Structures are given as structure tokens and as C-alpha cells.
């Protein structure tokens, strides 16, 4: 089961969605976002292994061997969905045909750099499609717990791990706060989840940011 923090993040991220958008959801936490799409909002989910129009998970026993997402989980396809090959899929992704991508991360920093594909010294997994998604999607959302398991801030002055993308992060959504990055101003703290104060966020955030004039407290509930 997903942790409460993950659910909080996924629910808040889902409220960023706009009607008609094409989105791509990373493996893990980002996949949960599909469960929280607000009423009246229709988004179309692309999965980089070659489908658009990903629907809800199939009922147990009804999995189709040739219908899975990039995390190899069984999927269904909604009416209007279709399949394509990997070269075409990444053409869509790099070509700006995906409105938003939601990805977890290990680190994100002041410059908008993202590091989420390798921990030096640990077993290599590979970057998969993350570098392409971060480069190609119109808006890159980082959806991640605020701190790593050892308590260190994932929102750093400068990434220490090898980058997945340089200056590509647009929005960071954690269980504690929401930051947006603007061309001139850099990261701006716009929302703070219920139970946290400005000082709390400052204490667990290493990257520089400014606080929005209309910063929203007790956020993450209904708008």
C-alpha cells in the first residue's frame, strides 16, 4: 500500500491536471496520480513503452499479456487509445506532444536540475525513459517525499548525484509543500500543507527559494 505521504502528494499533483492534457506518469508514486484525477477533468495518459489512453488497472484474472505500462504492470486501454512503437513513442515525448510528465526523484536543486537515475556505488538500474521525458515534456513535475529516508532534504542547493536532466524541473510537489520555478525568480514556495509552518519548510529545504506573497497555508485540501 502507498504511504499517506505518497497519497497526499499524488492527490495534490492530480489537482494540477487540466482538461484534455496528455500526461506521462513515472513508475511508483506518480502512477498513483491516476487515482485522484478530479471530476470533470479528462486527461489522456501516455506510457512510453508504446500506448496512449491508459485506463484503470484490469480486474484480477483479466490481465492481457500484451497490455502493460512501462513498469510492466497490466493496464487497460480506454476507447480512443492506441499502440505504437518505441521510436514513435519517444518522438511524441521529445517532440513536445506530452503536456506534462510526473516523476519521482532522488534530488532536485536550485537550478532545476534533476537527479533520479543513479546512486553512485549502488546497483545501476539505468535511466530508462526519464531523460527523454524530462527533456521533452512541456511541464516537468517532480513528485517526491520531501526528504530521503535518512532525513536529508531532497531539495538541494546542488545535486550531488549524476543528473537526469539539467534545468528542467518546473514544479516540485512534496507531502509538505509545493514550489514552482520561474525564469527570473527561481523557485517560489506557493503552498504549504496543513501541519507545517514556513519555518518547518525552511528547516527541511536546502535549495534557495522565495516565498510567494500569497503563499497558501493549510493547502492540499480542497482548492
Amino acid at each position: 500500500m502507498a504511504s499517506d505521504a505518497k497519497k497526499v502528494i499524488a492527490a495534490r499533483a492530480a489537482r494540477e491536471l487540466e482538461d484534455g492534457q496528455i500526461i506521462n506518469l513515472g513508475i511508483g508514486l506518480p502512477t498513483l496520480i491516476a487515482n485522484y484525477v478530479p471530476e470533470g477533468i479528462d486527461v489522456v495518459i501516455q506510457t512510453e513503452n508504446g500506448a496512449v489512453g491508459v485506463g484503470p488497472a484490469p480486474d484480477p484474472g483479466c490481465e492481457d499479456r500484451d497490455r502493460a505500462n512501462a513498469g510492466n504492470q497490466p493496464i487497460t486501454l480506454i476507447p480512443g487509445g492506441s499502440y505504437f512503437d518505441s521510436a514513435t513513442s519517444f518522438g511524441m515525448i521529445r517532440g513536445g506532444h506530452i503536456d506534462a510528465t510526473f516523476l519521482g526523484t532522488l534530488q532536485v536543486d536550485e537550478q532545476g536540475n534533476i537527479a533520479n537515475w543513479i546512486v553512485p556505488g549502488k546497483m545501476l538500474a539505468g535511466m530508462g525513459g526519464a531523460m527523454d521525458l524530462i527533456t521533452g515534456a512541456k511541464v516537468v513535475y517532480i513528485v517526491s517525499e520531501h526528504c530521503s529516508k535518512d532525513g536529508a532534504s531532497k531539495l538541494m542547493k546542488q545535486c550531488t548525484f549524476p543528473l537526469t536532466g539539467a534545468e528542467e524541473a518546473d514544479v516540485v510537489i512534496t507531502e509538505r509543500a509545493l514550489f514552482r520555478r520561474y525564469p527570473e525568480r527561481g523557485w517560489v514556495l506557493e503552498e504549504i500543507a496543513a501541519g507545517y509552518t514556513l519555518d518547518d519548510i525552511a528547516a527541511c529545504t536546502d535549495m534557495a527559494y522565495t516565498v510567494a506573497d500569497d503563499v497558501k497555508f493549510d493547502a492540499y485540501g480542497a482548492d
Partner: protein
Amino acid sequence: MPKNKVVPIEEAMSRIKSGMSIAIGGFIGQGDPLTLIDHLKTMDVGDLTIYENDAGFRDRGTVELVKQGKVKKIVASHIGTTPEIGKAMNEGRLEVEPTPQGTLAEMMRSGGAGLGGFLTPTGIGTVAEEGKQIVELEGRKYILVPSVRCDVALIRAHAGDTWGNLIYRGTSRNFNVPAATCADYVVAEVENLYTMGELDPNAIHTSGIFVDAVVRANIDYCVIREEVFNGQ
């Protein structure tokens, strides 16, 4: 009448020799050519260089060839589903070249299309640009990625005719399409074999023009996929 390319698997695979480069279709089990890989396990070949999105899933797929010591190098986007690959790399038994998924797909497609390479924005500012030429066009930086051409490609399709026209099903299409184009010799395993003219000429995903040998898929792929889904 176009040539009938259906041959016994032994004949189809006999062109594979030690030292060759092989492009393999599939995506962590979806559309992996497991029949051909199983046959390759029985062959006396080594020093292979593999271009594939991943090495399979758990103990199925290309990872089995790595365990046998047949593989020198693998160019892949993701090896996290086959822990043995990371282990072999760390122990110096295998060279791994991690490559962004879209770049890998385009390397194959571009090689198959007779292009020398392409300019991708993916990986600028990351290790993916190391050792690569950077080209700036209209103020944006791109990595110049050379195409890949392989000696052999191994792919899997849901349906195929005897000339090698192929139709894939669902998300099992993936890397099978670009892999089919980028090799001098292409072997396709097909789940359902048809005579020429039975497949809709508007619905062919891979033209027989790209395919050299057609083999019947002889593994119970459904069972393997069920295991994968149940294991999650």
C-alpha cells in the same frame, strides 16, 4: 510471389557467430523474442554485443545469455529488472552502456533508415553527453548520436505472413519495430503464421522487406506473462 522465408529455427539462427552485434526487440518481457533467445542459449557463440531496451525480466530473456557468459557488452536503457546484469557489470564480466530509452530507439531506427546519426536534446548537461559531439542549432544544444547497425536482429510479432510482414499486438510492439530495420539479418518469431495476402496491407507494422527469416514462436508466452503479472 514473394519468397517464403519460413525456416527451421536452427537454420534461421545459424547465421549468428561469435563477436556479432545483435539488436533485440521487446520491453521487459513484452514482446521479447524468447523462442529465439532460448535457442541462442544452446548455441556455441560468445563475445556478443546486445542492443536492447533491457535484459528481460528476472531470469528470463537476455539475462540468461549473460549468465552463460555469451555477452561481452549490452547497450540498454534499463537493467533494473534483471539484478544479475548489475552484478555481472560490477564484477567486470559485462560491459554496460546505459543509454536513454528514446536515444536507443532512435539509434536503431536511424541506422535502419540509412542515416548517419541524429541530433537529440535528451541528455544535454548529463553524463549522456560525455564523449559525444555537441551541435548547437538556433541556440539550442543537441547531442550528435551516431546510428547503430547490427549484424543480426531478433524480434517477436503476434502475426506474420510467410514473407515476413509482421503485425504486433498491444504494447508488445515497442522496440521490435526499430530493431527490425537496423540489422543485416533479421529473424522474426511469430505467434500466428499466415499465408501471403491474409494480413491487411494497410495494417502491417513491419514490412517483409526488413525480414530475412520467419520462425514459429514455440514458447507458452501467455504463461510467462501471467507469472510476471502475478509476481507484482
